[in-house]
């Protein structure tokens, strides 16, 4: 049986991969996907705690409701974010974050 620390370690590894991707990659769409990876890593932590710290003998449904809300907000965020990316591409014809430097001092 996998223990709680196994789940927390795997979730932390996924979060670290997402964090490294945000710093490393230059394509805005890929950066956005790495943000989704980090959100999902947090979801895994929430579900693991809901399973390993039960309330009244059942998995704590409060944690899973929070995961539901996180997924919903992430979906709304993706809709708006991708619309912003499309508008940005129309204005600048590039999606590389190192070429979007017109506000650099």
């Amino acid at each position, binding site marked *: 049986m996998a223990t709680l620390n196994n789940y927390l370690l795997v979730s932390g590894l996924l979060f670290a*991969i997402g964090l490294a991707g945000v710093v490393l990659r230059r394509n805005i769409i890929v950066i956005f996907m790495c943000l989704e990876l980090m959100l999902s890593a947090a979801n895994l932590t929430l579900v693991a705690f809901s399973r390993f710290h039960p309330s009244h*003998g059942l*998995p704590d449904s409060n944690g899973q409701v929070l995961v*539901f809300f996180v997924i919903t907000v992430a979906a709304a965020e993706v809709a708006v974010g991708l619309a912003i990316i499309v508008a940005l591409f129309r204005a600048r014809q590039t999606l590389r974050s190192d070429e979007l430097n017109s506000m650099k001092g």
Partner: protein
Amino acid sequence: MPSYLFWLFSTVMLVGGVAVIALRNPVSSALAVVTCFIGLAGLFVGLSAFFVGVIQILVYTGAVMVLFIFIIMLLDLKAGAKHAKPVVPIVAALTLAIAFIAQLAGVLSHTPDTAAPALDTAALAQASGEWVDAGTIAATGKIATALNAGSLPDVHLIGRALFTDYNLPLQIIGVLLLVATVGAVTLSKKTQE
């Protein structure tokens, strides 16, 4: 969940995650995210969170990543192979990731490890005592019946929590989705010259 399934799904998830940042082509990255989320959904199901596992597949893999791939193909991006990789971001990313993992490992090595509490038929039947006469909500009876039959009614449990304890946040989320839809339509409209 048996241990080998946990490690199998974890490996699928982490390999997918590494492939997201390792692959050059954005379409490959998007498909790697899909792989990663399928492994993650397997982990959710292994944690007896069946509802969360299913919406992970439906919402993320089914809707969000399709939207990503649609936008990538709409913008017709070239694979970014021409640009030389600068060294500084790679070093910074590796340092951040390794520092985070080291911190986490340090915390976890001092935390007492817990095994999963049992969710077998006896434990479920014992938990059903909480739900027998707990108010006038119709789902409560269904929860008690399912628990006595030895299955975990997690959709009913989450639905009951959503529509009682979290009723106001649920409605706010609905408004948020409406605002996001209107915002996306407004943003993607061509501006009048």
